[in-house]
């Protein structure tokens, strides 16, 4: 586990919408590095949690602190389940998120596209890419902003297996060591492959938080056991 000052602290975080509580009073201390996977059934509140971390949603109460200060949106990059692609070339999509385009950044963009297997398509209209290629582009676009924290909301949910493999390989080999990753999935096998720690959410409550090894070998709650055995999804 990370030391105190590298942890992400979540204090009394809750989120309501139209009188319905979607995330109940949550207190957590998460690793400041590695991959934290949010697991849970559909509608459990995983995406809400992730959007609260990015700042896309404002909590009804509570706070999120990283390295002693507030978790600013500036240090985060968010990749959603549905890839958002601008109607322009692949390379222009990459450069759009930059405040200033320098020759170094252009070179980095091309390198990232190459790592994502998109180097031959940099001048192609990004709308014509396959679903997997679009998601790989979104991931590369997130990385070029050099975020401290990368938040991925089921990025491989609707894409072809080879793109899933490429993304997972890239996250494990190139990203994990240099930045914090939050990853939402309900694919247990994917969680086993990626996770350093697991946050298990059930009906808007974090009911289990442990290292991936502990979670899969010795789940403490009945819901987690049922989830791992595939009885709830």
């Amino acid at each position: 586990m990370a030391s105190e000052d590298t942890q992400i602290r979540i204090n009394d975080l809750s989120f309501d919408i139209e009188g319905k509580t979607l995330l109940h009073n949550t207190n957590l201390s998460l690793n400041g590095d590695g991959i934290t996977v949010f697991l849970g059934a559909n509608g459990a509140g995983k995406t809400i949690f992730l959007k609260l971390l990015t700042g896309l949603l404002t909590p009804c109460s509570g706070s999120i602190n990283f390295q002693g200060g507030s978790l600013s949106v500036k240090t985060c990059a968010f990749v959603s389940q549905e890839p958002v692609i601008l109607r322009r070339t692949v390379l222009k999509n990459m450069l759009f998120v930059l405040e200033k385009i320098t020759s170094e950044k252009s070179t980095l963009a091309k390198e990232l596209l190459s790592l994502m297997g998109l180097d031959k398509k940099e001048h192609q209209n990004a709308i014509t890419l396959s679903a997997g290629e679009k998601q790989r582009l979104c991931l590369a676009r997130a990385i070029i902003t050099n975020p401290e924290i990368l938040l991925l909301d089921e990025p491989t949910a609707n894409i072809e297996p080879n793109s899933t493999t490429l993304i997972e390989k890239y996250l494990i080999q190139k990203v994990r060591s240099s930045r914090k990753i939050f990853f939402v999935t309900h694919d247990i096998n994917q969680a086993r492959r990626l996770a350093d720690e697991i946050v298990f959410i059930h009906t808007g409550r974090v009911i289990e938080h442990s290292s991936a090894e502990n979670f899969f070998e010795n789940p403490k709650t009945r819901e987690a056991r049922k989830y791992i055995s595939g009885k709830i999804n």
Partner: protein
Amino acid sequence: MNDISEAFVSSLGLILFLDSELLEIILLSFRITFYAVLISSILGIPLGAFLASTHFKFRNTVVSVLFGMMGLPPVVVGLFVYLLFSRSGSLGWMGLLYSPTVMIIAQVILILPIVCCLTFQIIESLHTRYHEFFRSYRIAKLKSVIAYIVDSRFELTTVVLAGIGRSISEVGAIIIVGGNIDHVTRVMTTAIALETSKGNLDLALGLGIILLTTAIVLNGFILFLRGKYLKTSGSTI
């Protein structure tokens, strides 16, 4: 029936031999339409994009008023602009009444809400897809508005086309503020009204044919652009 066919043949003669009076009327029509649509697009497209992508206190009221203004009666606009620019009006000192400039102003008042509202509708749907992405990357407001316009450029050509259609076929407002003065403010629509009332059907019909041809050519051009875009992007507009 005989009168119509004779007028039709005679009008074709006027078009084919490029009658100087006809040419003058056509060119003025195109000039007024060009400037009215250009000004309306420069103002209306960014305004529509801004309204579609921004939430502020009286946004819905502003949008409702603009949508209401889409159906402004041209003669009322003409009367309003006439009063404004007449000698006793607050802008009378400019001496613009019965000039092409005031005709452009009247047309801008008519076209601007159309351009703005159609842009609003197009960009609002794009905004639902993009806004979370823009927020998560902290994209500046101006940059995001430009991105909305650039990314909906092919849909916006239809908006411009709607503006051209409204402008070139408009008669009620420009006949009041322009006065339909020969060689000064006479355009195709006002000329058709006048020549028909005078019984000069060949010139009226010739102008009508040119109006129709202009509309068909413009529509065809826009459809060609859309088709080209669909072919290269594989996107559905």
